[in-house]
Structure formats: structure tokens, C-alpha cells
């Protein structure tokens, strides 16, 4: 299998992880008990927003970073059991 990308791709993944870690650690609302929409604590609302962001991030990865080389395998016949380790 070919490598999925060069070092730029891995730097991109690292940057994405650091950004997602930082966004999740929203310490500015740590002790804030403000209720939004009447009954949703703001600290919970922000983390719900984070989950929605995660779905958007994954959609972006699928759109622009999908490992196309794996799709080719779908067209190939799987080798027989002789190749099994």
C-alpha cells in the first residue's frame, strides 16, 4: 500500500489535533453556570458545539483528504487464503 501522503499531510494532522485539543479545553467557561436557551449550561452548550464541529471536520477530511488509493482495492479480487499469514 502506498503511503497516504508526505510529511505535509502529517504536519496538517498534527495542527488539526492541536487545534481540536485547544478548542475542547475551553477554560474561559469553566466556572460559568450561565444558562443558554433557558436550561442549557453554557459549558455544556460549548461542548455540544464542539461535537458538531467534529462532524464538519470529518466531512472536510472525507471531501479533501480521502485515501483514493484504497478505493482501487474494491475493484480487485481479494487474494485467496494462501496469502493469509
Amino acid at each position, binding site marked *: 500500500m502506498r503511503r*497516504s501522503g508526505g510529511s505535509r499531510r502529517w504536519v496538517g494532522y498534527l495542527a488539526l489535533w492541536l487545534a481540536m485539543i485547544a478548542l475542547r479545553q475551553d477554560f474561559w467557561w469553566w466556572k*460559568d*453556570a450561565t444558562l443558554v436557551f*433557558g436550561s442549557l449550561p453554557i*459549558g455544556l452548550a460549548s461542548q455540544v458545539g464542539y461535537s458538531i464541529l*467534529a462532524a464538519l471536520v470529518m466531512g472536510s*477530511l472525507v471531501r479533501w483528504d480521502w485515501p483514493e488509493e484504497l*478505493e482501487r482495492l474494491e475493484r480487485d479480487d481479494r487474494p485467496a487464503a494462501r496469502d493469509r499469514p
Partner: protein
Amino acid sequence: MIPAIVVFLYLAIVLYVGIFAFRKSRPSGEDYFLAGRSIGPFVFLFSLFGTNMTAFAILGSSGLAYQRGIGVYGLMAACSSFVIPFTLFLIGTRLWAHGKRFGHMTQVQFFRDRWECSAIGTLFFALTALMLVPYVIIGVMGGGATLEALSTVLGPDGQPVMVEVLRGGQTVLEARHWVSYEVGGAIVALVVMSYVFLGGMRGTAWVNAFQTILFLSFGAVAFYLISRNLGGFDQVMRRLGADPETASLLTRQRIPQAEFFSYFFIPLSSIMFPHISIMCLTARRVSSFKHTVIFYPVCILAIWLPSVYLGVIAADQFPGLTAGESDDVILRLLTLHSDAWVAGILGAAIMACVMASDSQILALSTMFTEDIFAHYGGRQRFGGVAEVWTGRLFVVGVALVAWLAALGLKDRVGIFELAIRFAFSGFAALAPVMLAALFWKRSTKWGALAAALWVACAVLGTWYLHGLTREIAPAPGQPPVPIFAGLGGLLQRTPGNVTVAGFLPVLPMVLVSALLVWAVSLATRPPSAATLDRYFPR
């Protein structure tokens, strides 16, 4: 009694799904253990998600939210909504590809082939099997607790009928149940065992998909009904906020920032759990992963938000519960705020999550059959049919052991604690090994071995320290206690955990594991060029 009847009806349905899958099966190991690599995108998403959602996701999270507040969502769910789909995207797709090309059915087969070493596979089998067993026990414990709670005997006044029982040498009053914890656990173990025994991966995947849809549908209904009965959640939340005892539940004050940060690394465990990685091999096409990684965060949101939120609401409705008692607050809310039939249907939905131990049982069976029985000559000597029956008999054994263990562990520890302590950190710390195997040509079996030994020692060490410091553990809300004064607070004991410089052990475990794979691999000889050409073709 009505809720229990509904749950039994549900159990009958999943049993029938297993029988139906049995009729579709063919007598081969690949068909029984991987459904012939034929799972379509819809079932793949829901079965993969259902497999990850156990008693821990529902009962554990709501019980923990009762104790520690709304931060529990961010603690486990928010990070899972990014880390799990990302690892499925990066690792799951490659595992699928290698499985399709080389016929792998387990992680261990991949490691053995990738690093040209049988022993490394056997070590990984032992390590991962040991860490998976507690997860299976949780399913049975959750099932027993759920059936017991749903079958509470009510008097003419609608209140539970209380009876005197002997606990720890003292007579205490407890609610009477039609189905006891022990019998409930046995029923759940028996049903799970039956459909896994008959249907294998096909039956398990179908049941998981059905269970996930059921829970996603009725989770929202539970939320609505409880809200309606309480006249909305606004007043409850304001009451919680106004009481100094409970106000911090609406914030993350009960969760230290270093602990919150550490939890980001726990979902790395997901892709390393054998049942998840094996399930990745069942997809018919790699494109099935596309929908899965996009909708996975949405599914997490749909299940965890009501669980955590209702856990906090329960702090207002049932104040003063201890950590073990608060595991069933969702069930208490349902019993109190909905009629019997609805409570039964919703109880069945909770059972859906509780019973996710099916795929762990199947994974253990697959690993034993493929990595031990077949690898050491069983398939050659006895044939493919014997291989499938070996797997089936192993399913029976695991279910029985899990039930017996669940009996012994009743009321000892919270469901959440049991899972997190022994399994999640260990599996998370093995993720660098998988990453190196898939993407780094220079990685070696010695690097993997060093990391695996480190993980085993770290898990045992944490377990030992946790037991050693049980007596000095501070009460909730109190500052952590240094474990060894000479280390200057490097190792500390919090109410629920041992920490390293304030962080959960998972953080140093993952970092050291990655460092060991890297350093030891560079110092040792890589696999042959032929193997590298197979896995990294130019």
C-alpha cells in the same frame, strides 16, 4: 412488571435476529467471524457505533454526571466525537485494506505478518484479551442492574414495596424486584451468548444496528417525557444553580483541568479495542467509512447529551446517592416520570446499549480461534468447520465467566470506574504501536514489544497504586493527596484516580509508548524488504 415484559419481548426479538443470521450463514471462519466482509454502509455505521456504546455510555455517564456535573459530556463525549472518527478515518480504513489484501481477521494476524514474528502476536493476544474481559463483565452487570430496576414491585400507592435484606451483617431496607440482579445478569448473558453463538458477526452486526436505532429513537422520547412531566427543565436547572451544594454541577468545577485534558487521549483506545478493529474488517467497501466518520459525532451527541443532562437533572430529583447507587439514575427517572409501557420500551432501549458486550464476546472468540487455535495448527488438523465450532464454544465459556464475575463484583465499584481503570488507558497506549505498524516502514517488532511491555506494566502499576491508596483517597471536592512524599507530588491520589503530575496515567502511557516504539525501532533491525514491499509498495 410491564416494563420487564417489554424488555423480555425485546430480548426475544434480538434472539430471533441471531437465528435469522444463522440461516444466512455459511460454514467458514470468515463468514462466522467477519460476516464474509459483506456489511453494507448503513449497518456498518450503526453496528460500529452500537459496538462502542455500552452500559458505560448510558448508565456510567449519567451516574458520573450525577456526581460531577455537565463536564462529563466534554470529558468523554466531545473528545470521542473527534478522536474516534479520526482514528477510523486514518487507521480503520488501512486495516480494512490490509485485511482485504492479505486475509487478516484480527489485529494480531496483522502484527504477526507485518513484523514477521509469531511471539509478538501472542503477546498482543494475551494483553488485549485480558484488558477486554472487564468490558464484557460490564455488559452483564449493566444488564442485571437494568432488569432488576425495571422489575421493581410497586405497591397500591405506586411506591416500591420494601423488604428487609442482610447486607454486610446489617439489616437494610431495599426495594423488592421481580427479577433479581443475579437472574437479570444471567438472562442477558444467555441471550447475548445465544445470538452470538448462532449468528456470529452477521447476527451481532444486525443486532447492534437494531439496538442503535432503537436507542437513538427512544433516547429523544425519554428526554421529552421526563421534561414534560417535570414541566420543563428550566426550573430544575435554576434550582440546582441556586443551591450551593449543587451549583457546581452546572459548571466543570468538579473536574480538574489537567484531568479534563488527559481524557482527550482515552478515545484512542477505541480503534485498538479488538472488537472495533475486527468490525472495521467487515465493511464491504472502504467507502462505507465515509458516512461513518461524518455521522459518528452526531450519533455521540444524540446519545451522550440526554444521558449527561438527565444525570444532572437526577441530582435534583434523587439527592444524596453514592457513586455506585447513581449508576441507575436514568432508570429511576424513567420509572418515576413515564407510564409502565413507555418505561418498558425505554428500558429496552437502554438494554440495547447495555448489551453491546456481544461484539466483545465475539472478538474474544475470534481472537482465540484465529490467533491461537488456527495459528498453532488447529485449522490444519481439524478443518474449517471445527474452527467455527471452537469459536462458538468459546462464546459460551466467555459468557459464563462474565456472569460469574458480575455476581462477584456487584456493588463493589461503579461501572464507569471499572472500565476506565483497566481497559481504556491500556488500549489507548497501544495506539502508537498500530500507527507505527501502518505508516512507519522503519518500525520493528522490538519497538512494538517494548511498548506492549510498558503498557502492561503501566496498567498493572496503576491498578496496584489505586488499590494501595484507597484508604488515603480524599473525599470528593477535597484536594489530591501525594502518594509518595519523596516524589514531591508527582504521583497523587484524587477521589477517583491516581494521577501523574496532575494528569491521568493515560497521558504518560501514550507518550512513553510512542517514544518506545520510535527509539527501540531505530535501534533494531526492520523487517525484510519483501515484507516491507508488501505493506508499502512503491
